[in-house]
């Protein structure tokens, strides 16, 4: 996706009408009876609300986060860099595409998401300019079709298109990937009134990186003169095809949002994910990632929030191309949103 056109689209989007969160917390009945005791009568409590007047509901969100990263290079070498930092800025446009009833028991609320995120590694320059090589732009386009089903289940069909690129290298695009996914979520009401959110998902990533021909193009003449071009190319076609990052993934997530008051919410989370690669030299590689985290989100205004986060990540793999590592990340995020 061309950055110029993407930016133009984001600017155009800002003048449209929108809404940020179109998926439904399917536990919305929880607490309704408790809330209703004050004016309870036989007819039922008739509380006034304001509803959206249009089917299309756009929203715009801007966020910026500064994070401490214990293991910035994501490896387990003794000589690895430690105690790094990163600054993210992102602009996200979401568009609710209406709500549709299916038969008598399901509701589908499709939505579209476009995001542009830029990451500056080591903004404090603790490691000089070395970490700038990892600075990256990421453009994401996503289509989500959540189906709210009986018994509080939500099944979401989605597709995410991701394009990372190097903004310090003339916008060189690193790869493209399309990831269709199926996610099943269910909130579980606890006796103490809390809600435990359980999520499980499956996905398959179709990737497209530089082809071996493109990788060798810079030194094509020299290699041809040396007579090793053809053999090198055929070897790379087998071991490093353009779709090297293709793989099947699944994940299991658990979160427990604790509402302290109208403004403050603590959310401990635990996530397990596994990725099975199946192309080239990655064939047979299995990565397992465990993430334990907690966030504290404080809504200063309806349009602004501050979030503190802390995550511990552990990655295991049987492959040679990607190292195992452990990492701790802590930081703060400022978020601004507007629903049109």
């Amino acid at each position, binding site marked *: 996706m061309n950055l110029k056109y993407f930016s133009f689209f984001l600017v155009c989007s800002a003048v449209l009408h929108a*809404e940020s969160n*179109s*998926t*439904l*917390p*399917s536990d*919305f*009945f929880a*607490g*309704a*009876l408790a*809330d*209703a005791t*004050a*004016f*309870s009568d*036989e*007819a*039922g*409590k*008739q*509380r*006034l*609300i*304001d*509803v*959206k007047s249009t089917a299309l*509901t756009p929203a715009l969100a801007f966020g910026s986060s500064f994070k401490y990263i214990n293991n910035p290079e994501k490896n387990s070498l003794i000589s690895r860099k430690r105690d790094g930092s990163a600054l993210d800025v992102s602009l996200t446009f979401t568009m*609710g595409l209406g*709500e549709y*009833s299916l038969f*008598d*028991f*399901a*509701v589908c*609320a499709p939505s579209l998401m476009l995001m542009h995120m830029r990451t500056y590694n080591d903004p404090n320059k603790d490691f000089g300019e070395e970490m700038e090589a990892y600075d990256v732009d990421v453009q994401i386009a996503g289509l989500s079709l959540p189906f*709210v*089903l*009986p*018994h509080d*289940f939500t*099944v979401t069909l989605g597709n995410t298109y991701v394009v990372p690129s190097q903004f310090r290298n003339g916008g060189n695009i690193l790869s493209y990937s399309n990831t269709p996914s199926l996610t*099943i979520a*269910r909130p579980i009401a606890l006796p103490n009134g809390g809600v435990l959110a*359980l999520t*499980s998902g*499956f996905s398959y990533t179709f990737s497209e990186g530089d082809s071996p021909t493109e990788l060798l193009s810079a030194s094509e003449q020299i290699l041809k003169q040396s007579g090793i071009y053809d053999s090198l190319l055929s070897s790379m076609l087998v071991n490093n095809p353009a779709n090297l990052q293709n793989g*099947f993934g*699944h994940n*299991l997530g658990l979160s427990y949002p604790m509402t302290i008051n*109208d403004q403050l919410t603590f959310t401990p989370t635990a996530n*397990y994910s*596994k990725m*099975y690669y199946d192309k080239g030299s990655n064939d047979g590689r*299995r990565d397992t990632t465990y993430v334990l985290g907690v966030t504290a989100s404080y809504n200063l205004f309806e349009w602004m929030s501050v979030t503190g986060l802390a995550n511990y990540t552990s990655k295991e793999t049987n492959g040679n191309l990607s190292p195992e590592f452990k990492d701790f990340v802590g930081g703060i995020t400022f978020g601004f949103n507007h*629903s049109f």
Partner: protein
Amino acid sequence: MPVAGISLSSLLFLFLFSFGCLKVNPVINHYSEATSLLKKGDQSLAQDRYNDAIASYKKALIHSRNLPHEADLIQKLKSRIKKTKAKSLVDHYQSIQEDNHSEKNRVLPATFETNEFKVLQSFGEIHLSRIWSSKKITELDGYIGMGRKVTLQQDSGLEIQSSHFLLRTIGPAGFSLDSNASVFITSGIYFISGGFNTRPPLFIEFPIGKTSIKSQGLFAFFLEITTNGGCKLIGLVGEPYLALQNQKIQLKPGELIFVMSDGFSRKMNIELSTFIATSHLMADFHEPPIFSSKMRQNTLIQAIRTKRHFRAMVGDAKNEKDFEIKILEDDQSKE
């Protein structure tokens, strides 16, 4: 294969998802039910409880329709119904001669009551008057005739259905069943649904006016008679059109409107999830209301579409021009 690795952690979800989809219907022995009701009817007839006897025989007839080889039983039941009606008629006129009661002179015995409205659910004290002799609805009563005036005491409930509409109410309430497509409501709260038959429209009369309801499809709404004699309507299912004098308005799920003496008030939106969860009309009956799954679907859609909650609740309309809004205190409301 990766599929083997996901089975334990994730396929559990699919199992949980499919769990609960199975529904087992109980097996009914229609013959024993019919013969049991026949005996019960005979006992009621022997004690001159004609209404109970008729109700038992009619219920037995419903069961006997599932028994095509029991023509004798069907014939016996029909004969019993005729006999009971005849006996009740003789008894009725004998009692008129004895006490010369003026009201009784104008009505027929309840055993001759027609069956335009089927009683789906009932509980508590419910009185029927007009056209036929007065009676209380009991567990056995299956039908109410057109033209009846129905009065519900406190802590009672009734759900009836004609070929055109369904009405559910809890006491105290009072209404008259003018026809199988119109009702005159004098007091109480109601859940009314229709659209089973697109013609004719449903007519609802209340103390200060009359409105017609027409819909291309199925619909359901809540109705409450307000202190000023008008009514409050809340859309629950479908998008019916309401007509009053020269005005026409569409009522969508979650929309609330007052019908005043001079027409419709402005529309408001109320939170359906809270309303349905707190309404006795929904909770006090054994069976959920018709279209309950559709109502739940509409509450989901409304919850997705909700922008904000106001610290206010809609109240009564006590005069001809305006209605009450109650402000919620901080501790009674969540923004």
